[in-house]
């Protein structure tokens, strides 16, 4: 059961790297455990490191109102196979974040109830959030 978690710090944040395949279990523990009690998911974000490291970082910013502490949880997924479990079972508010990241970056969240396009027009091809997608020279559909 033990997961390999890399605990670090950055400015004033506690940054933890966790294995992507178990991110939902880790998130669930973080939410339910009394000492951490991270009931508030502030942000769910994908950072594209495709060019340098052929990977994406899925970043979760967590906050606890009771203890007034915060944490950053990061999971690394490979650009070639960008999938990881969803955390909508833990925080309902991850729903649209994950849909948006799926739209913009093509990251697939396994177990998400409804991964339709959210902010892009229906039928848009390509993943505009990625660095590899050009800012200007793409074909309008």
């Amino acid at each position, binding site marked *: 059961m033990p997961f390999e978690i890399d605990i670090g710090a950055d400015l004033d*944040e506690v940054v933890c790297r966790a294995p992507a395949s178990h991110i939902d279990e880790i998130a669930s523990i973080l939410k339910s455990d009394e000492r951490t009690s991270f009931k508030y998911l502030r942000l769910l974000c994908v950072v594209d490191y495709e060019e340098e490291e052929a990977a994406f970082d899925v*970043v979760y910013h967590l906050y606890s109102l009771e203890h007034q502490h915060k944490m950053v949880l990061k999971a690394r997924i490979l650009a070639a196979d960008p999938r990881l479990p969803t955390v909508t079972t833990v925080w309902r508010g991850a729903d649209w974040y994950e849909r948006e990241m799926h739209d913009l970056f093509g990251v697939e969240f396994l177990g998400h109830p409804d991964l339709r396009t959210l*902010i892009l027009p229906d039928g848009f091809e390509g993943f505009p959030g990625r660095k590899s997608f050009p800012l200007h020279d793409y074909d309008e559909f």
Partner: protein
Amino acid sequence: MTDSGITTNVIDKGQGLADMFINMGPQHPATHGVFRMELALDSELIVDATPHIGYLHRGSEKLFEHEIYSQIITLFDRLDYISNFNNELGLVMAVEKLMDLEVPDRAEYIRVILCELNRIASHLIFIGTFALDMGALTPSLYNFRDREKILTLFEATSGARMMHNFFRVGGVKQDVIKEFPAQVATLLDELEAGIDDADKMLSLGEVFVERTRGIGVIDGDVALDWGVSGATLRASGVPYDVRVEDPYSVYDRFDFGVPVGSAGDCWDRYYLRVLEARESIKIIRQALEQMEPGPIQTKVRAIARPPKGEVYVHAENPRGDFGVYLVSEGAESPYRLKVRPPSFCNLMALRDLLVGHYIADSVVILGSLDIVLGEVDR
């Protein structure tokens, strides 16, 4: 949450069979922007609701990666286009934190005064349009008249009524005119009278109360799970206000109250914002007293290059908890700049709020969330 003894007006929260589907289309007088909602109805009752957003998506986050920080300030103005100063504040705070800059006091006070005035302007719009959704034609015009006065002051300060481009990394662009304190003081008296007018016209009126009490109730824990913030969360009894919880800028030097509701319905969300506008007036008065002459920008290079690192800052926008996540690689553009818009998260809870209500309530509930599509779609 329901210990106030007010029972909800929801008839049946069970799953009725939907026999009619209605599209509140992107062009609609009551959806506060381009927003589409599909409602599945069982005669008058809403059984299911699916919001569709993305009509105003402009690819902001990709654009941020290709622009320098002083250009990004103009883009941030246009995110939540009703509370421009609050958005700008989010960005400059993020860059300043990464660069470990100390902003001079006078600049901080100017920022606070402008942000709080913007909060009052935003809440005035909310009250007006909320009443307009229900058919009360008059309060919106009174509130827009008061907002005009605020916008005139903004124009004198920054040169533009709405898209200001006024805050800079390390301070503000230029000092305020010397009549500014006197003008703001007169304006505050007029705004107090204006907010009292709006309050008297609506808050305890029979029809208004019938339309908003017990409508769109959400429990505090459920709201927190959805990531709801701002007045919507506070109306459900969760006392979370970023200005108190995690003070930024100079908010820890002011003495102000934060209204918190307990019924979690539309009336509480509305009344909270009226009281918040009054508290903002108090903050501005204190800021005017405490403000002293001094520099308005620290010495910083024209093109800011924050060092490599990442940072998350958040501020209390009129709509809720506005977050900015900045990943910098030391360049003059951010590597990744993600905005956490409060309206986006508040809107996620819409389905929970709507199910079980009448279709005429959908407009009231959507109005009470106070969303701005500019920041939902980005």
